């Protein structure tokens, strides 16, 4: 991909320089010598030149087309694969859900093993989104009602940025995600940890856990990573406290910003789909304690 881009850049720069040289040279060399200047020689064209500047660009784009097709074959994943995908990525207004074969669900950070390519399936739960992790894969539209496949591959372990790249409504700007590429053992360990439930709540968090049920938070949000309905209605909250960001990147995961989600979700992320919770201050504190206990 970088090679194809460099090639296009070199071709474009060369063509631009040829045109610019012609324009600049003519502008200086053939500037009028004042109003009384005689009319220059009237030239109506040159068949030979015209054929040259038709055929040469034709050859250039033919070469570019061959390079294009070869790169496409290398980059693009098979769209009618019989292999089940290793990862299903679902776009929602305005967050990403990643589902792993053994039922683990992740929101926000998508973990993958590094150094090998994964077949990932891209879906949408509502409108058209686009999954774009520039360092790891081609861009792929998430179209509702369609399954699309990409190869997702990180050469080295690390954290890679990604974002939605198709306008999808009010909060398109904050539909960012991260891909965390790890060595195979630490990826497996992460999967295991993710599947475990968090420690049982204690103290005020017990009341929070109760509120989570009675206030129907659980209608949209699951708190365990395994066995949640697909696609989820709201972001999965398993191990929420261990996340770095909230709201697909709109804020850091601090008690203050989490509290804002509980008390005034439309202020936390204007336009998002979460209804007003109508919690009292005490209830919000208990719920916050519960969510903070989801390590």
């Amino acid at each position, binding site marked *: 991909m970088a090679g194809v881009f460099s090639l296009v850049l070199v071709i474009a720069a060369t063509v631009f320089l040829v045109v610019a040289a012609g324009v600049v040279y003519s502008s200086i060399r053939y500037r009028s010598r004042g109003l009384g200047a005689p009319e220059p020689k009237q030239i109506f064209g040159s068949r030979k030149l015209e054929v040259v*500047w038709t055929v040469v660009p034709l050859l250039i784009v033919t070469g570019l087309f061959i390079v294009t097709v070869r790169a496409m074959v290398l980059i693009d994943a098979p769209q009618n694969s019989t292999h089940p995908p290793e990862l299903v990525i679902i776009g929602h207004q305005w967050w990403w859900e990643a589902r792993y074969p053994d039922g683990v669900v992740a929101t926000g950070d998508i973990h993958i093993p590094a150094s090998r390519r994964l077949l990932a399936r891209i879906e949408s739960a509502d*409108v058209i989104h686009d999954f774009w992790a520039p360092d790891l894969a081609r861009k792929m539209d998430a179209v509702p009602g369609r399954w699309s496949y990409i190869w997702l591959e990180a050469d080295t372990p690390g954290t890679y940025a990604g974002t939605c790249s198709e306008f999808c409504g009010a909060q398109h700007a904050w539909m960012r995600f991260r891909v965390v590429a790890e060595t195979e053992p630490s990826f497996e360990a992460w999967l295991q940890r993710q599947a475990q439930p968090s420690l049982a709540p204690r103290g005020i968090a017990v009341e929070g856990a109760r509120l989570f049920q009675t206030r129907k938070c659980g209608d949209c949000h699951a708190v365990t990573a395994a066995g949640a309905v697909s696609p989820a209605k709201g972001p999965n909250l398993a191990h929420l406290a261990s996340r770095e960001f909230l709201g697909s990147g709109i804020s850091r995961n601090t008690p203050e910003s989490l509290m804002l989600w509980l008390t005034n979700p439309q202020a936390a992320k204007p336009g998002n789909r979460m209804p007003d919770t109508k919690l009292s201050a005490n209830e919000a504190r208990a719920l916050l304690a519960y969510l903070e206990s989801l390590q």
Partner: protein
Amino acid sequence: MSDWLCAIDHKRVGILYMLSALLFFLAGGMEAMVMRAQLAAPGLKLITPEIYNQMFTMHGTTMIFLVAMPILTGFGVYLVPLMIGANEMALPRLGALSFWLQFLGGVLLYLSFATGAAPDAGWFSYAPLTEKAFSPGAGLDYWALALLMITGGSVGSAINLIVTIATQRAPGMTMRLVPLFVWMTLVASIMIVFALPALAASLVMLLSDRLLHARFFDPAQGGAPLLWQHYFWIFGHPEVYIVVLPAFGMISEVIPVFSRKPIFGYPFVATSTVAIAFLSYGVWAHHMFAVALGRNFLAIFSAASMLIAVPTGMKIFSWVATMWGGSIRFTTAMLFAVAFLLEFTVGGLSGVAFATVPVDWQMTDTYFVVAHIHYVLFGGTVFAVLAGVHYWFPKLSGRLLDEKLGRWSFWLIVLGFNTAFFVQHFLGLLGMPRRVYTYPNLPWFGALNVISTVGAAILVFGILLFCANIAMSFFFGVTSGDDPWNAWTLEWAAASPPAIENFAEIPTVRSRRPLWDQKHPEAPDWSEA
């Protein structure tokens, strides 16, 4: 006043088109400035995301449908009869109807602001975001109805131009002898007649979904979101050439006159226009490369999109070759034309980058696209129109635009435009998606965005200076005479401004440059064969 409201004379209708385009240009420019202000630094909260989304939707829709198309139609309606030696359009009443449909469509679009819900799904409004479930407000209904009116107006004026060019040419003016602006306006008009119905059809489907509970685009009910994209882009890509070809025509008039040479390779320039028109109907899916449509399907559209660079490149080389060996007068009109050549080349070349599918798979829907379309439509079309305004203003008004103000506005516009948009290539390469109301504080994002915003402010200043020049020169400008540029096409044989009846006596035409023949009887362009 009623003279203008009831005007059917092509010159008045043409000027109405131009004034309405200027009005909406200022509105669309204001929307752009609101966006640039909001993006000046990461995390700003000057406006809400909803307002931001309304701004870019209205900006795009305005600039395409209420500025680019009407200004080019306006020039076409004003100039085509004069250039082909006719006294009127073939269908004057259709001309007036077309204008008012277009203009009132624009008014309807802007009335949506009064409901508190301007359309906010982008100028190409992808389904199913536009369905009632996701966009419950009335904004998109206004959008679709307004565009239907504008579609009707555009097709009406296109038919009028086609019939006029086909039937009203002066004796002797065969299709091989018409000025290139007329030729390209003809091709663009034919393209309008074939492309706009696809838009109308998609709008009717959208309105049916939204108002009549149809389900064309709802996947849960067996509809297909991608159907919208196919329909929209079958219209949408020819549309790009619809708003570029007449601008090419303007450049093809301005450069020869100020280089004192005929256009280099008229037949190639004219036929390459037809080639562009045909190819433009076979490239629509390059707007959909990020959809998994199948590799072979994409490859065909990649090939067609690359091919279209060839006839476009032919034109650019022809214009440069026209300057070569000439005796170039750098009037403000010529300055804009030369800047057009360089900027449009940049926009065309970044277009080739998008035809290269693997590059598109990274760069589509980023600021690289925003830079690309603005180099094509602003650096290209708007610069060509500015060249055209400076060139033809004396014909419209009988007065010259002030050259000193013209030069100031030119340099401000060039500086502002390139500052605002060149850095957006880098923003795209760094990974900034388009249509985001804000962005995280990533390396370079803040710096490049603030540069872009400063450039936009300079650009606005240049445009305002240009408007001031128009207003002042209209009242106080130096009288131009009928033919201030020593030009060659028939409009310069008419009075400035032309009388109601353009030509007291319809001239007979024997070459592409009838006024050259008149001025150089010893060496006319034609010869007795």
